[in-house]
């Protein structure tokens, strides 16, 4: 227990460092958090919504809102786990400073994952607010989207850190975004329900974490029955756990050699 407490405290000190940096630039960061989903929802929801009409009995804008929640959680955590984390690992050597103290590599990685999830959380809070203002949210159940967003953030920041552990430069991240993140976003039911896709593609989508995040978020936001909740949460947890363990191991190899 004492050991777990120590790891938690050390990870939190890493998390605190990052939130302190963020709070200095919170203005522009929050503008992005609020502005981007607002534009997406308004422009795509209105523009495309005219042609699409309703999906599953709700307006396209409302359908899209839950998708935007998930992609935003994915993008915030991924960006933080790749570009920002790489800067701290390699360019500024911030991590090297941290591990010159009682903080270990595992603490740094856990702190960074927590921070990535926090960024997801912040951005999803913004989208939820925007969505409620636009009348796209169906009641207080939508607040449960926040813990789901945090879990999604944990999942994608740990995956991003695993990618970062192997990165030689910023360009390397384009492989991951182009080959993994973008296809996942397109196929997981962000913009349209995936039951229109061929079964094989549906099968693949269901093996990926984003599909499960959306399956949790969508009914919470627009109402409807929650199905297979444990499975969806379980998949997100498994992806998080496996990529965290691998990321710790790889970053350990990279920094301690």
């Amino acid at each position, binding site marked *: 227990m004492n050991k777990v407490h*120590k790891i938690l*405290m*050390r990870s939190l*000190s*890493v998390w*605190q*460092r990052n939130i*302190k*940096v963020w709070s*200095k630039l919170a203005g522009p960061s929050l503008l992005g958090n609020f502005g981007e989903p607002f534009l997406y929802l308004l422009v795509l929801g209105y523009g495309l919504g005219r042609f699409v009409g309703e999906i599953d009995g709700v307006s396209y804008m409302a359908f899209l809102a839950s998708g935007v929640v998930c992609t935003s959680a994915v993008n915030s955590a991924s960006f933080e786990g790749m570009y920002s984390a790489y800067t701290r690992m390699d360019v*500024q*050597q*911030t991590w*090297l*400073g*941290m*591990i*010159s*103290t*009682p*903080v*270990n590599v595992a603490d740094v990685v856990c702190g960074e994952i927590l921070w990535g999830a926090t960024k997801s959380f912040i951005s999803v809070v913004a989208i939820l607010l925007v969505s409620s203002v636009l009348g796209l949210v169906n009641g207080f159940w939508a607040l449960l989207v926040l813990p789901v967003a945090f879990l999604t953030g944990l999942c994608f920041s740990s995956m991003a850190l695993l990618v970062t552990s192997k990165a030689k430069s910023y360009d390397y991240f384009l492989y991951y975004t182009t080959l993994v993140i973008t296809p996942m976003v397109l196929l997981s039911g962000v913009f349209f329900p995936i039951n229109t896709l061929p079964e094989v593609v549906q099968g693949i989508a269901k093996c990926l974490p984003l599909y499960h995040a959306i399956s949790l978020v969508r009914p919470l936001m627009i109402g409807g029955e929650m199905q297979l909740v444990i499975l969806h949460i379980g998949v997100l947890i498994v992806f998080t756990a496996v990529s965290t363990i691998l990321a710790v191991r790889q970053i350990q190899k990279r*920094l*301690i*050699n």
Partner: protein
Amino acid sequence: MANQVNDPIVVSKNLCKSYNSQLVVNRLNIEIEEGCFLGILGPNGAGKTTTLRILIGHCLMDSGSLNILGLPMPEKASEIRAMVGVVPQMDNLDSDFTVRENLMVYGGYFQIKKSVLKNRIIELLKFASLEDKADSKINELSGGMRRRLTIARALINSPKILLLDEPTTGLDPQARQSIWQKLRELKQQGMTLILTTHYMEEAERLCDRVMVMDHGEVLADAAPKKLVKDEIEPHVLEIYEAEADLIEDVKNKADFTRYEKSGDIHFFYGEKLQNSLEIVERSSHDDYIFRPANLEDVFLKLTGRDLRE
């Protein structure tokens, strides 16, 4: 219990480390006593930085054992680092923060209480002569100020041992002098300091013990004065750009014990070198120096004059 003050606080036995089958640290056996100021000298690639990295658990040894402050490394790396300060070769201050915030955040990694930390930071700002710069951004600081801040940061946990990897490389003479002054203060407070350096003068002035390393091995290990006394002839005659005849004349007198040539400089090492000196003085050649031997001569004798990249 009896001899506690002089008990070694760093003990390594047969430390070995190789990268790609090249030995970087070769059977390193060191004992460092509390309060000692140890300088590690060596050409590039000698294994100095690797040794320091092993001491803080940033590099895993292939074999051997290491004990610091009574704890085994790397098993107790975190606990050991809680009692050690590290000044890295490359500046990694947090550029997003001010001077004070840098110290604050770094103290957070040690889980130091906010109230304790506040007072500690006031002390350290004073120690590093950075009181006026407390709220400045890092990019507003000069190279010397950054180094002083890095040292202050390494002291945030009141460490028992301070490790410094080439702390004055790239600084102007004034900044270097001021760093030396700070390090001497720490030594007087009883802190154990371990420093790597390329500057002989630095080692000679600061350290009470100097270890010369090359190819991962310790070639000599003693007080700097003792090294100069034991390892090398007392005097050196350096002759620059001389006629071949003059050099031949000096060589024929043979009151030197060792001769070396580097480019167009001729080095004669010996006890008094009276005869050699007389010949040069009588000749018309005036580009020469006669001086007592120093640590650099020892260093070059031990590690050779070949260029290291």
